[in-house]
């Protein structure tokens, strides 16, 4: 894919140089960041609607924390500390599968169990990463938690692209089954859905997506983009169709706007923070609309 990225970057740079495109497109890192945004936005927006349906709001956060351990293991076994994808994917997949395996074997609700795993993964991950950071003299903890969308490499974009394609090919045909499985597992089973297998597939997809996005936007931001756009859209939408498309649009707008706005107007805000703040503004706006415009009101209890 590198020749394509190079062609795209050079074309946009030329257009920027000619005054046709805004001046920020002259910078390679901006083009990379915006390319990632237009992939990550719809991807996280769409998956976010399912995360909300399955009440797994903090699962990706737990996976993000597990990525810390994955990075630490990667550094310890000699992977590059800037992109230890093999260790991150391996450990996070193992972590997600163990979490899902444990779920029906305890009497806890999904959110409580995720909370337990989230705490464990943060404690173990942070401890290991701090130990490893001292050895390689870098700030791994920050980069995993908050990512670095402006230092995205071609490898990072390729990983994101592959994960996106896997999600489209595997996840889209199973979307209805996943939704039915979360609405009523018993009904889903009678209708021929292998509820447990579908659950594992969903866990694996969210894990892959989270890990692919951790390097680019960070574990904290993955969580924010999975939840805030969906919450904002839910305030106004009255059908699944409008909910999913609005969520995808808001997530994409937040990503692109969060990168573009601070650069265009020299606002001293890091892109990660700007992305979350923009999403939060959408959420506040839609909450206000929902409470002010009579047509959007629903029963409060």
């Amino acid at each position: 894919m590198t020749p394509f990225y190079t062609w795209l970057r050079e074309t946009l740079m030329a257009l920027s140089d000619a005054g046709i495109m805004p001046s920020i497109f002259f910078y390679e890192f901006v083009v990379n960041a915006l390319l990632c945004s237009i992939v990550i936005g719809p991807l996280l927006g769409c998956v976010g609607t399912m995360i909300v349906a399955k009440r797994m709001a903090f699962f990706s956060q737990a996976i993000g924390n597990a990525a810390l351990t994955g990075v630490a293991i990667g550094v310890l076994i000699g992977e590059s500390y800037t992109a230890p994808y093999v260790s991150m994917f391996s450990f996070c997949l193992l972590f997600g599968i163990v979490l899902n395996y444990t779920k029906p074997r305890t009497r806890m609700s999904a959110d409580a169990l995720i909370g337990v795993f989230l705490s464990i993964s943060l404690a173990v991950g942070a401890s290991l990463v701090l130990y490893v950071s001292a050895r390689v003299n870098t700030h791994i903890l920050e980069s995993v938690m908050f990512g670095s969308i402006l230092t995205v490499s071609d490898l990072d974009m390729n990983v994101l692209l592959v994960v996106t394609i896997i999600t489209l090919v595997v996840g889209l045909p199973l979307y209805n089954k996943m939704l039915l499985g979360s609405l009523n597992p018993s009904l889903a089973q009678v209708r021929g859905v292998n509820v447990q297998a579908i659950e594992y597939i969903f866990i694996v997809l969210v894990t892959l997506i989270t890990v692919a996005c951790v390097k680019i936007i960070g574990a904290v931001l993955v969580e924010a983009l999975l939840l805030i756009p969906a919450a904002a859209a839910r305030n106004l939408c009255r059908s699944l169709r409008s909910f999913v498309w609005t969520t995808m649009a808001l997530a994409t707008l937040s990503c692109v706007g969060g990168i573009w706005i601070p650069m265009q107007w020299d606002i001293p805000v890091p892109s990660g923070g700007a992305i979350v703040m923009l999403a939060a503004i959408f959420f506040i706006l839609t909450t206000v609309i929902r409470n002010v415009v009579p047509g959007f009101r629903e029963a409060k209890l």
Partner: protein
Amino acid sequence: MPGPAIHVDNLSLQLGAHRVLASIQFSIAAGSLHCFIGPNGGGKTSTARCLLGQMPHTGTIRFEWFNGNKGNIGYVPQLIEMERTLPLTIDNFMTVISQDKPAFMSPKKEAKAAIDHALDRVGLTAKRSLMLGSLSGGERQRLLFAQALIPNPDLLVLDEPMTSLDEGGSRLFEQLIGELNREGTTVLWINHDLDQVARLADNITVIDKVVLAHGPTATTLTADMQRGVFHSQDNGWAV
């Protein structure tokens, strides 16, 4: 295609320390309308869920499908709380169960036709844009019945589908169940309304952890048995 016959032999179910079913044995004739009756907590729903493969039971359950080809099973569960977090409409829900194409995309033509027909049969066409969270109990039961009609069921398992229905709804459901049964569908119906059972069922099985009685309704649901049921109502029998 006629519905299946079902043969249950020595069916037992233990959940933790609780013995739910003990050596249950009965048969359901192909294309018949068969009712389970019995007290609350007696194991009627558990028996149905064993038949649907959802319980860790012991014993044998054998389905005899017409020509050996497994047909469609429609299931109307007990009234459930509907999703309030998602903006999911009746139409969306029906699309979810009708096709593999994601429900947030436009529905396929054939799926739409099937949904229109099913919603029309249960009288929900005018309410198809309502969100699930805003539905009344009766509307939810109509929706659960509508989903069981897609695809056309060869075996229909109904778990107290009329609890929240008004009189018109009950009449409609009776009529729909009768139509399906006449077309050959085997109907397994968990029902507390003994008058309705006496009127409609071909056969009954009375379950209270064990099979108390089993056979044709006319000879099994006798005045003695009904008196027993009404007499035991104070002790937990529901009618």
